[in-house]
């Protein structure tokens, strides 16, 4: 029941369409229903699959490790391309500098500058004498970051625009749902074509009938009765007065009214699309989209805790103590710090107290992307609630999503047992993920 709510507007639209084109009632509704579901599914997968193209010579595992390190530590100031954020873009950095130089620079740039290294001093001066913090990475870790930067240059060459890629998503993981998505698109096209054909058909038929009528009137000698038949005049009042039509119209009216009422009632408390004005006009599009800052950088507990946590002002200050200091929006953060008053954001995602939700369960263990539930956050200037956050929506996903059991010893035996007893996918639900006490206690 609740599951319908998530796509209620679209469904209604469909029903009207189906009603008007009564020929395609059943077919149309069905096809659209599936396509809508599939759309959600594909949207959920989309960002994960962007990182699928792994190019370059280095070991993918090393690149993955490097990607994580880069996104959590470097991406704030450096892009992997050629843009300058705070520090220089790192595209082709390995060609510009020696690896050993890079390693000592990352570990302690100030030491390198003080040692009088010409390149180091030049860079330091070029970027307004802004010191790069020291990182306690091992050599291997720095090499993995470099490997990642190198691989990004290749990716950039292959695909010019990349969406902020989440880490750790295995490519091709959601092949099944992707396939449904493709079928859904196909059905959409079939429907449109069908409607066009119908319209053409109606127009053709009308044309034919008018041609025939003209022909008969001109070229044939018709008796009175035949004339009456040919030159039938359409009497609208008859239609208007017809009991059947009246009943039908009333019925439609009542159904629409009921549908609207039900919609409204079921929608109480659901804030899908809720996009309140925030005290600071923070843009996720700019940070997560354009600058590709990893979600985890600010929402620092998203992999560890129940709560993803809203960043404290000191996290903003990591960058904004240097960047865009004069912006009036950023001035608000300074004021908050000066007055020692935390920033009061307006809460968008509200789960009722009776439901327990844990971010780390989904992100760390389940490997679910932020965008699956939060939508295309990297495109949102103003964040809105993308998902309905109803129980039906949760349960739907738990029923459909295969468990992320790869490499997790917890599930090893369970996967075996499942494979023995069932051919279906080992979904969250088949591991008890739809039981009450998984979320309500």
């Amino acid at each position, binding site marked *: 029941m609740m599951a319908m709510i998530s796509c209620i507007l679209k469904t209604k639209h469909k029903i009207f369409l189906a009603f008007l084109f009564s020929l395609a009632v059943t077919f149309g509704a069905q096809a659209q229903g599936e396509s809508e579901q599939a759309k959600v599914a594909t949207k959920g997968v989309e960002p994960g699959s962007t990182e699928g193209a792994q190019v370059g010579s280095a070991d993918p595992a090393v690149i993955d490790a490097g990607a994580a390190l880069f996104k959590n530590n470097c991406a704030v100031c450096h892009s992997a391309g050629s843009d300058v954020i705070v520090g220089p873009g790192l595209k082709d950095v390995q060609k510009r500098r020696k690896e050993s130089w890079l390693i000592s620079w990352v570990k302690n740039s100030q030491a390198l500058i003080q040692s009088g290294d010409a390149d180091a001093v030049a860079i330091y001066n070029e970027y307004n004498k802004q010191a790069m913090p020291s990182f306690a990475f091992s050599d291997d870790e720095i090499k993995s970051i470099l490997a990642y930067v190198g691989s990004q240059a290749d990716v950039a060459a292959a695909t010019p625009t990349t969406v902020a890629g989440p880490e750790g998503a295995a490519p091709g993981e959601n092949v099944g749902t992707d396939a449904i998505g493709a079928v859904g698109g196909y059905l959409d096209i079939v429907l449109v074509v069908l409607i066009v054909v119908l319209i053409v058909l109606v127009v053709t038929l009308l044309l034919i009938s008018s041609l025939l009528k003209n022909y008969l009137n001109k070229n044939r000698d018709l008796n009175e009765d035949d004339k009456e038949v040919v030159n039938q005049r359409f009497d609208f009042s008859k239609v208007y007065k017809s009991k059947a039509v009246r009943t039908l119209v009333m019925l439609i009216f009542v159904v629409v009214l009921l549908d609207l009422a039900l919609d409204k009632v079921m*929608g109480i*408390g659901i804030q899908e699309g809720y996009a309140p004005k925030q005290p600071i006009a923070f843009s996720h599009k700019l940070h997560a989209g354009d600058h590709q800052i990893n979600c985890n950088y600010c929402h620092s507990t998203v992999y560890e805790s129940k709560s993803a946590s*809203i960043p404290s002002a000191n996290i903003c200050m990591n960058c904004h103590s240097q960047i865009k200091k004069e912006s009036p929006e950023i001035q608000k953060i300074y004021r908050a710090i000066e007055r020692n008053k*935390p920033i*009061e954001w307006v809460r968008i995602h509200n789960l009722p107290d009776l439901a327990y939700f844990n971010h780390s369960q989904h992100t760390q263990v389940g490997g679910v992307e932020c965008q699956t539930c939060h939508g295309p956050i990297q495109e949102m200037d103003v964040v809105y609630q993308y998902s309905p956050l109803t129980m039906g929506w949760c349960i739907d996903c738990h029923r459909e999503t295969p468990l992320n059991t790869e490499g997790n010893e*917890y599930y090893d035996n369970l996967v075996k047992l499942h494979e023995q007893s069932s051919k279906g996918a080992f979904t969250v639900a088949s591991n*008890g993920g739809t*039981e009450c006490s998984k979320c309500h206690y």
Partner: protein
Amino acid sequence: MQDRIKYWKGIEELDNTPEFAKHAHNEFPEFLPIGEGSGQESSATGKTHRRDFLKLLGFSVAAVSLASCEAPVRKAIPYLNKPVDVEPGTANWYATTYYLNGDYNSVLVKTREARPIKIEPNPTSALTPLGTSPRAQAAVLSVYDNNRLRTPLIKGKEAKWEQLDKELASKLGSVSGKVAFVSSTVISPSTKQLINEFGSRFGNFEHVVYDANSSSALLAANNGVVPGYDFSKANIIVGINADFLGTWLAPVIFAKQYIANRKVSADKKNMSRHYQFETIMSLTGANADIRVPIKPSEEHAVVSALYNAIMGGGAANVAGIDAKALANAVKDLKANAGKALVVSGSNDPSVQAMVAAINTALGANGTTIDAATPYFVKQGNDAQMLRLINDMNNGSVGAVFFYNANPAFDHPLADKVISGLKKVALKVSFAERNDETAMLADYVAPDHNFLESWNDYEPKKGYLSLAQPVLSPIFTTRQMQDSLLAWSGNATSYYEYIRNNWRKVLTGDFNKAWEKAVHDGVLQNGSSMLTVSSTFAPATIGSAAAKPAAGAIEAVLYEKVAIGNGTEANNPWLQEMADPISKATWGNYVTMSRKMSEDMQLVQGNVVKVTMANGKSIELPVLVQPGQAQGTIGIAMGYGHTIDSMPVAKGVGANAFPIASVVNNGIVYTSPVKIEKTSATSEIAQMQTHHTIMDRLVVQENTLAQYIKNPKEVTEYVRIATHEGPAKPSTVSLWDDYEYKNHHWGMVIDLNSCIGCGACTISCQAENNIPVVGKAEVLMRREMHWMRIDRYYSAVEHEEKDYATMEDPAENPSVIFQPMLCQHCNHAPCETVCPVAATMHSSEGLNQMAYNRCVGTRYCANNCPYKVRRFNWFAYSNNDKFDYTMNNDLAKFVLNPDVTVRGRGVMEKCSFCVQRVQLGKLEAKRENRRPKDGEIVTACAQSCPTDAIVFGDMKDAESRISKLLAREHGERAFHVLEELNVQPNVTYLTKIRNLA
């Protein structure tokens, strides 16, 4: 097969009174009397008028349309500057120490977003690694008590610290006469040192230590310290009026030791034998194998009989005392020399001197008593305090400080304390609330709660522990030690002071060692810091005090497990905790034997006027207590607060401290009293007598002799008659069995280990946001505790033709405790009757309860054979009628954010701490591994001081529970009401008694 033992929960069940019979068949009262006072016509008849209906309808429509408007704007406020180690949504644990009035617990405190929400035992501690006391469990609520002082007080008016410091500095400079620092026992080495340093500036300074429930005589007989008892090494334990498992000295430490030698298994078929001679039915007496009721006036005679028999070898005989039991005790003690221990709770130096001599003669020193590691948990000296009271009244005291001491309430000479204080020029109290003594003080410098403080402790020589703050002070309070430092003109903080002190005992790199000590909470390398100099006159063996006139009723003042001496009486969890023996909540009462109540024509609930020798009188209801010694009554201390700063405790019970009297410069907790019946009645809110067991086989016990003979015959298993002969009930089933692939959670409760202390019930309450409902609701049988400890009295039925047992079974019954909680049945009767499927089975064996699906039909509770479901008759949160823990913002901080606060009209029950199960699994998944055994434990199992509750995964063959079940299968393991074939996931182990 064992003798048929008859169990009953209370006198009313034994007698099957009409009142009881009526209630027994009627779990819920017939109607819900919500309409208070006169009630309107409509609610009285139960019919709704048309107009009322329309009004309601209109209101509902309006409410729904309002709700459909824009949802209220909710704020999400992050930290401005996030502390490094606080992660929202993740718990942090800190090791600290709870110590109050002898009750020492090394604990771990769980904090969420920097708010403490739960206290658990510290497994690193050698003294209290297993569990905590109920009071330690409840202590987390006390920090959020709205009635603590928010600022210092000067002459009762709120003031600033600067002003107080300024005024005190000038007053302290010009103090004339003696300066006294009055405290209860201080086991903090640094605090003690600091108090002495603070006093050194005065010419005449004394640190007066007194305990409301004193052990002066014990200390006097043992050079000022509590002997290093080790109950785990004793084969024979004789207790004389010493409730060492419940309230005496250091009960949690003793319970752990005691139970070590009480657990039996097929590999270890021996256990200690415990004799208890006592007046009231105490928790310890309830656990004894042989319990003998004695009057307080017979105590001396009993101990001297033991003394003479052991020293001289004569026969022990005391008129009026069970001669067989006494002779057996002597025989056993002699036969187990070196493995025997005699303890007495008496405050008569002569008795304690004899006990010390008996222990020496039995060779206890070096075995059951470690002289090298005495306990410091009690140091109070009655004589010192009495002298101070006299000095105050003489006008020779110039200044007096009170720290953790409230003599105006809890001293038997409270009147003289009050009159004496009027003659003292400078009175300073460090009380956390404006208590009876603080109200008489000129200055109140409120101390931090222990959860806000740094401190160090040494409960036993060589066992140091630390306390660290787990939240920043809520109010503008200041730690007592910091106040002393400030007034001494010492600029260091108490934290630095402790650190400096600890340089003496920490080895290696100090900072590292210190951090480790703070992290562990304990330092057990044998180094000791506390110096205790005996201020006692040595105890000598003398003759008994004058006996009260024959026929006089002897009253005993005793301490209850929950309330203690009343310091924490404002804690609603403790007030509503059922007393382990009487099962009574909210208040004290006069316990008396059944015979006495019949002789005096009293029934339970009749209010009697108890007049003491000093002429004071109190009025309290009667509680008929099986096992109470004839001719005696017992009244609990700690009740009867009348002050506004204790709204929860205000007017609950009566102050019984005047029963204690001063004898020979010491305090005895007994006095002869007169009892008169009054016309009033006052119902006692008891918890357990609400249900009946209808003579069914619920608890099981047997004797050690039988267990040694054949462990397979100690437990009775019910068999169902089938056409193929008797069969196990589980073989005849209507239902399909569940298949558990992943986990199968289960619990084993060892009735032999459970001492009935009730720590688990409070732990459960704290963990699961269980509301406090108040006395009126408990009387209506609407308590909300998910876990209760059923206490059954028993006696062998008359068939045996043993004349001794043919006496009144209520005179001295055996007691057995049975923790009862949702049994998480595999074929749960509740699940099948729920019309909305709000309760159903999980794939891990849990019986789940979805509150937001429940519509409150209560069918499930009716169908539950164990009566463990609880119904929310009211909204207990944000409701002024239940102003306990969920009605103000501060107290709400104690709520566990991972557990729903239930609304009105829904059923609830034990969830096997599903939030912990889920979290434990999640942590394992995050680390790509299976959960480790022992990682996931329920709150009750974690806080049990005797390890009686084992929780774990029965699917994991290597888990402790699986091994235990395999070992005890067919021996002691049984399911309650097995014949119903509900197949519980909770298994009990038969209690074994080591009868003489």
